[in-house]
């Protein structure tokens, strides 16, 4: 009997051992299924955060507006979307409000609900960023003769955006995780695929574990990209 070198022996037995585990086989043979789910999640998130940023900026400016009507609408909007669960909002829009106007599929409903929800958080981030810019900046701009929107566009927002970047990246990560809630309306994103695979294989630890790994890779990538952007802004 020949003696196998220790590492090889270890490697061989580990691989053999893993292969004999059903859950491991489920995960390995479905890797493309997870990957596609991750891409759907990413797509949901990117669409929602983009729409959320545009809408959030508008709502932030409305909230800071001197017109009572505009600022009240913004306050109510932010209160509603931050004060109720996203899960419930998704169902409200998909089953309740949206069908009254258009026939959206689950994916579009999910994007709409997540965008509207994210806009409320983005609005608060942007508002805080604008208010963190020194008051003297607005006064200097106005004293030169700029109107409120010119001062905002050329002086305040270019300074606010640096303050806004770190919490915005955080919001991006949070939203990516929160898109898992659209699985409730059967959007075929990562969490929903986990649910399906689990219900046919009954391998909760392996299936949900694999889902976690894919989410983690995505959130880690975003926050690392965010750190890179922050460093670049700091040296600017």
């Amino acid at each position: 009997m020949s003696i196998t070198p220790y590492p090889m022996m270890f490697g061989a037995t580990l691989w053999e051992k893993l292969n004999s585990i059903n859950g491991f086989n489920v995960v390995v043979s479905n890797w493309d299924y997870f990957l596609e789910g991750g891409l759907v999640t990413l797509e949901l998130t990117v669409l929602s955060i983009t729409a959320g940023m545009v809408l959030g900026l508008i709502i932030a400016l409305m909230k800071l507006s001197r017109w009572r009507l505009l600022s009240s609408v913004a306050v109510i909007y932010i209160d509603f979307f931050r004060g109720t669960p996203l899960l419930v909002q998704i169902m409200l829009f998909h089953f309740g409000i949206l069908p009254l106007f258009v026939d959206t599929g689950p994916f579009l409903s999910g994007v709409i609900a997540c965008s509207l929800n994210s806009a409320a958080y983005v609005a608060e981030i942007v508002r805080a960023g604008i208010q963190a810019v020194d008051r003297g900046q607005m006064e200097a701009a106005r004293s030169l003769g700029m109107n409120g929107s010119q001062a905002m566009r050329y002086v305040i927002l270019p300074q606010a955006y640096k303050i806004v970047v770190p919490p915005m990246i955080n919001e991006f990560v949070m939203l990516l995780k929160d898109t898992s809630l659209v699985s409730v309306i059967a959007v075929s994103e990562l969490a929903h695929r986990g649910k399906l695979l689990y219900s046919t294989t009954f391998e909760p630890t392996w299936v949900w574990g694999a889902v976690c790994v894919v989410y983690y890779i995505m959130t880690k990538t975003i926050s690392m990209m965010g750190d890179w952007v922050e460093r670049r802004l700091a040296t600017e």
Partner: protein
Amino acid sequence: MIEVKGIHKNFGRLEVLKGIDFHVSEREVVCVIGPSGSGKSTLLRCINQLETVQSGRVFIDGVEVTNPKTDINLLRQQVGMVFQLFNLFPHKTTLENITMAPVILKGMPKEQAEEIAIGLLRKVGLPDKDHVYPAQLSGGQKQRVAIARALAMHPKVMLFDEPTSSLDPEMVGEVLAVMKDLAHEGMTMVVVTHEMGFAREVGHRVIFMDEGVIMEEGTPCAIFDNPQNPRTQSFLSKVL
């Protein structure tokens, strides 16, 4: 050039200006002095409507700025303001700080605005600082850029709110020298200041304010050498 008639200003319950009347002629330099909290900054900010008044009227070059129908943005283009804390735009170079308003507000071509800006930087003694960001400038340099920024709009009037109060002593002179040149060129100026030497030398008239009213006004000689009001006397005895 500036006509202030009976203005009152409250911040909530606090009455900061209690009926102020004064007049500044064309090419005149008026210095406003007085203890902290007397309402000097507020008065200056009421002139260009950074603060709105409760009552009273302000005219600049015959136009009533306190009239809600007046286009206040257009009017502010003709009134330069220099702040205690400079308030330069930190995300822009000095050149961009100066060209921004003429380009945006007057639609001036960028090259023309830059030519003017370079001329102004030379005028305030900073010809080689055009592509530098404000963070890289000393306090005195920042304030000189701020003056250049205000001048780029060709204002009819310049308002200065304690332009040297946040500067280290060795930098005060360079800023006052620029202001002095400006005064000699005939710029109409209202200067809130604690620099009594400047007020005496450059000011045509000195206004002493306390507790929201003008206590005394007159030529620098009259105010500094022969103050009539006991408040003026006690203020000057503390600062001179």
